[in-house]
């Protein structure tokens, strides 16, 4: 294939041989490509619209700032900071809360999910608790955690722990339950004891589901931390957005929103890359 063809193929303008010959494509989802070319067009168009819209002063910058204003704020805040913290400190504050809350959620949620998958008593005992708390949006607990531990770090971490916990419990439990009985039987027949079964069969077998849970939990945590910072915080991207909105500094608000989007997206990509690297057998058995 020539370089141009390869390029065309990568951006989705060139169909593969089979797809080209298909007479039925509507409804055949495998014939629907990623459409990267259209993604590029879409991003360019939207950026142009934003740029032109503000250049022609179609929108009041109080409602929606110009790209250059957002960019200037980006430079400004990353150099001078905003509200006692540099831009990186705000970002780090949000990320730090997520990592600690998420890690705690995994640390407690995964063993608990395993226990629930393996023991009838523990499953019965924790089932009502899990089923009760799971559907409650974590944000509903904000007032409570503020009463318990103020608006400092602890309240946010507690909230994120809560957000991640139920997801991880359920993912781990599902992972344990998904093990095929023939695998367990095979392992016992090969002389494995209970501990070895847990470590060498049940745990690796549950990893794909645990990882899926982690990705979901990561997303929920990111949303929750930003929202929590909107309500009560002294630093963080969410706090930045909230503080700026009080002064109608829309450019900072939009900058914050863009940062939230980029980080959320990057975290998901990172998790997916990690997953492909650590669990290559996912979906293959």
């Amino acid at each position, binding site marked *: 294939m020539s370089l141009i063809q390869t390029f065309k193929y990568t951006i989705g303008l060139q169909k593969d041989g089979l797809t080209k010959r298909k007479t039925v494509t509507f409804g055949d989802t495998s014939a629907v490509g990623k459409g990267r070319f259209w993604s590029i067009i879409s991003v360019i168009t939207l950026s142009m619209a934003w740029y032109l819209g503000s250049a022609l002063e179609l929108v009041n910058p109080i409602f929606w700032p110009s790209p250059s204003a957002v960019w200037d704020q980006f430079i400004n805040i990353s150099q001078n900071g905003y509200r006692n913290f540099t831009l990186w400190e705000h970002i780090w504050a949000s990320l730090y809360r997520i990592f600690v809350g998420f890690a705690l959620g995994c640390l407690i949620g995964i063993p608990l999910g395993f226990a629930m998958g393996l023991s009838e008593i523990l499953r019965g005992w924790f089932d009502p608790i899990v089923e009760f708390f799971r559907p409650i949006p974590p944000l509903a607990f904000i007032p409570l955690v503020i009463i318990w531990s103020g608006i400092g770090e602890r309240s946010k971490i507690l909230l994120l722990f809560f957000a991640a916990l139920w997801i991880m419990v359920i993912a781990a439990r599902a992972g344990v339950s998904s093990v*095929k009985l*023939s695998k367990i*039987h095979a392992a016992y027949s090969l002389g494995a004891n209970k501990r070895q079964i847990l470590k060498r069969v049940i745990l690796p077998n549950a990893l794909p589901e645990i990882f899926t849970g982690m990705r979901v939990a990561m997303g929920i945590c990111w949303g929750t931390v930003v929202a929590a910072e909107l309500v009560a915080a002294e630093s963080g991207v969410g706090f930045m957005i909230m503080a700026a909105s009080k002064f109608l500094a829309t450019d900072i608000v939009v900058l914050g929103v863009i940062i939230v989007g980029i980080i959320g997206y990057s975290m998901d990509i990172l998790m997916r890359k990690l997953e492909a690297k650590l669990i*290559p057998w996912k979906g*293959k*058995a």
Partner: protein
Amino acid sequence: MSDLVINDVSMIFETPNGEQVHALENVSFSLKQGELLSILGPSGCGKSTLLNIIAGFLAPTHGKVELASTEIHGPGSERGMVFQQGALFEWLTVAENIGFGLSMKGTPPSEIKQTVDHLLETVGLHDFGEKATYELSGGMQQRVALARCLANDPDVILMDEPLGALDALTREKMQGLVLKLWKETGKTIILITHSVEEALFLGERLFVMAPRPGRIKQEYALPFAEAGVTKDPREIKADPAFGAKREEILNMIWEMEEEIMGQTETAGV
């Protein structure tokens, strides 16, 4: 010697609504070390139940199973299992799968490697040790399952429809491999199958089981497995004697199926 003795084994499953299913009733037989037994029978006649009892995954409601005069109370590495498919550990490589049993026992890695290399050779997969199991074809996966079982050097190998999911050609090749391994290793093998041809070819002894209650309806002693060690499998299967036995057994199973159908029909009326 490690003889396997099944002594008056019955298994009654109780369903939640109080019904009793007689999966096995008074099943007795014994296998000498190195015997090759195949079991045939209509669906639901208790073949898997019998195998699970011997493997130690189920405790019979009555009777007992003894291996080398020791009663069986649970699974153990002296009784290896080969399942239909999907019992390999996909998070381990082919070599790690085969070495699984040994590593559970704490065998030193160098020793494991030696055994694994030898077994890869035996089942014809020498270049596949570092591959992932899901990269292999169905037939190759069953070779790995066989090798994994052999690595532990069990006295008895239990196989529940091990070739059931394979295409006809691969299946024939695998039958040859099972026969070869049986002769070379001298292991006692019990093999469950739905294929009459396979049961004839892979059984010095063949049990035809009948359902409700699950029992051994007919036993055969067959020459084909022994002959298959030296002769071409195709030749043996083309033998008129083989064909006659196949017809006889097919008829018997056919009649059983008819009977079951009849029973359910009258029960429905």
